């Protein structure tokens, strides 16, 4: 096996994982950063995104692109509404008390999971990708004819996977613009820093929290819609994204958005590369080890600030 082309392939696979992970973890990070809520049900919002994507694509029928685009719009929107409702019905009632929000979101996790099992069933169901050309990985050699580009047999990625990477970058850029350049972002950042003062300056903090919780869940759902054409929807698919998102958020620094992206790329890429060359289990072991190291040597995370 040649190393070069395999490394390119592994890196691309890693970038796909990183792209989806960055979006999912960003949702968790925003919710924690602004509301100080540890959302244990975050992975279930991811799963709901995939399941609703399947429903939408299934009900619409027709060309796969139609179903996919509709899913990309409706699934995150619906999940955001469900999450905002959960915020009003559960988290607001317990006043965002840290201990009780953990218990509350664990409850939410099981409710969402079991309702999905009862309605969607235990099967894994695929959503067809809107396009899916095979793209061979190019490589080069210096043979008797000098420099030559060739396509090693059997190594390829699909155009859809490249689309996932591009779409994630676009969505995260849009999120960054929202947070740093708009009034909505300003209100969210002010609420994050001092919710009491934000309210004293006219910010309806409860409404902002509901929106933020919806946004966080919507991001996870969007990540899931992107990934469901290559992974299939299943009612237990939320576990891994939840665990990896927590790892990313801890490594990146709680509540730091740039830190979250950096950590997602780090974890996603190494997960992809190590899985290809060694084994997925080793990748998870190393990620967990990395968390331990970060917690020991830099408890605030890569980009986090120490709180006084």
């Amino acid at each position, binding site marked *: 096996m040649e190393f070069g082309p395999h490394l390119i392939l592994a890196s691309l696979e890693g970038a796909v994982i990183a792209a989806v992970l960055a979006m999912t973890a960003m949702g968790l990070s925003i919710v924690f950063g602004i509301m100080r809520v540890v959302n244990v049900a975050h992975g279930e919002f991811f799963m709901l995104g995939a399941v609703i994507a399947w429903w939408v694509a299934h009900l619409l029928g027709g060309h796969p692109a139609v179903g996919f685009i509709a899913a990309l719009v409706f699934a995150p929107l619906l999940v955001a509404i469900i999450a905002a409702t959960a915020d009003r019905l559960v988290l607001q009632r317990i006043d965002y008390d840290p201990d009780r929000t953990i218990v509350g979101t664990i409850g939410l996790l099981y409710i969402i999971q079991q309702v999905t099992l009862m309605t969607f069933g235990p099967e894994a169901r695929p959503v067809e990708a809107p396009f899916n050309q095979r793209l061979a990985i190019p490589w080069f050699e210096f043979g008797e004819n000098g420099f030559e580009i060739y396509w090693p047999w059997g190594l390829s990625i699909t155009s859809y996977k490249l689309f996932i990477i591009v779409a994630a970058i676009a969505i995260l850029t849009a999120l960054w613009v929202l947070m740093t350049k708009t009034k909505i972002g300003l209100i969210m*950042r002010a609420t994050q820093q001092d919710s009491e003062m934000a309210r004293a300056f006219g910010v309806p903090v409860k409404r902002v929290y509901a929106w933020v919780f919806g946004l966080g869940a919507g991001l996870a759902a969007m990540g899931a819609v992107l990934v469901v054409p290559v992974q299939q929807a299943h009612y237990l698919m939320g576990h891994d994204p939840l665990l990896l998102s927590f790892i990313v958020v801890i490594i990146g620094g709680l509540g730091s958005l740039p830190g979250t992206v950096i950590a997602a790329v780090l974890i996603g890429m190494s997960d992809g590369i190590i899985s290809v060359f060694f084994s997925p289990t080793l990748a998870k072991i190393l990620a967990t080890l990395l968390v331990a190291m970060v917690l020991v040597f830099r408890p605030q995370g890569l980009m986090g600030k120490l709180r006084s």
Partner: protein
Amino acid sequence: MLEVKDIYAGYGQVQVLHGVSLDVAAGEILCVMGRNGAGKTTLLRSIMGIVQIEDGVISLEGEAINTLPGHEIPRRGIGYIPQGRRLFPELTVSENIEMGLMVRKVSRDTRDWVLDLFPRLRERLDQRAGTLSGGEQQMLATARALALRPKVLLLDEPTEGLQPSMIEQIRQVILKMKDEGFAIVLVEQRIDAVLALADRVTMIENGKSVETLTAKELGASPDKIKRYLGV
């Protein structure tokens, strides 16, 4: 303009205010004095709806505001300059002022009007608020509250920890706002500042407003100053 009638408030089990009343008219400076822990900050927090009152009424131009949701109170035109400034530390100077401008509909020249009052801030628009000096932070806290063009301005010890030149500058701004017709409630500990600025003074003792008198009367009775403030 603003009237506080016999309010009771506290934190959980701890009762802090029992029977505080005061009123302030447009174009008037009312000072609130009392010893440390008397409940002055709690009084202002109650007006802002941060602390829920248990009894009594707070009204602005005749409308009861203590039953409004917290974020509606500033929108009625109350600007709050809290003790210890409480800026949004990670936001820039410009963004902190923007938070004030967004509270209610204000004319477009408001931002310039505020920055003209504090030219120092204009030079530092992109600096993070948390990195400003103490005096600059106080200017920004004041600017943020003025940016909503309030009818009523609540100031909680705005000159705490500032040097004389800065105190003088804050004082000038307060006087200017009085001339603009704002109703001003000023919590202040230093008696010389109170006598120079106040129209009337409300004394708070152990969470109860015990007496309201004009600045003249207060200046003429050192025994009262000694009794309420222990100086």
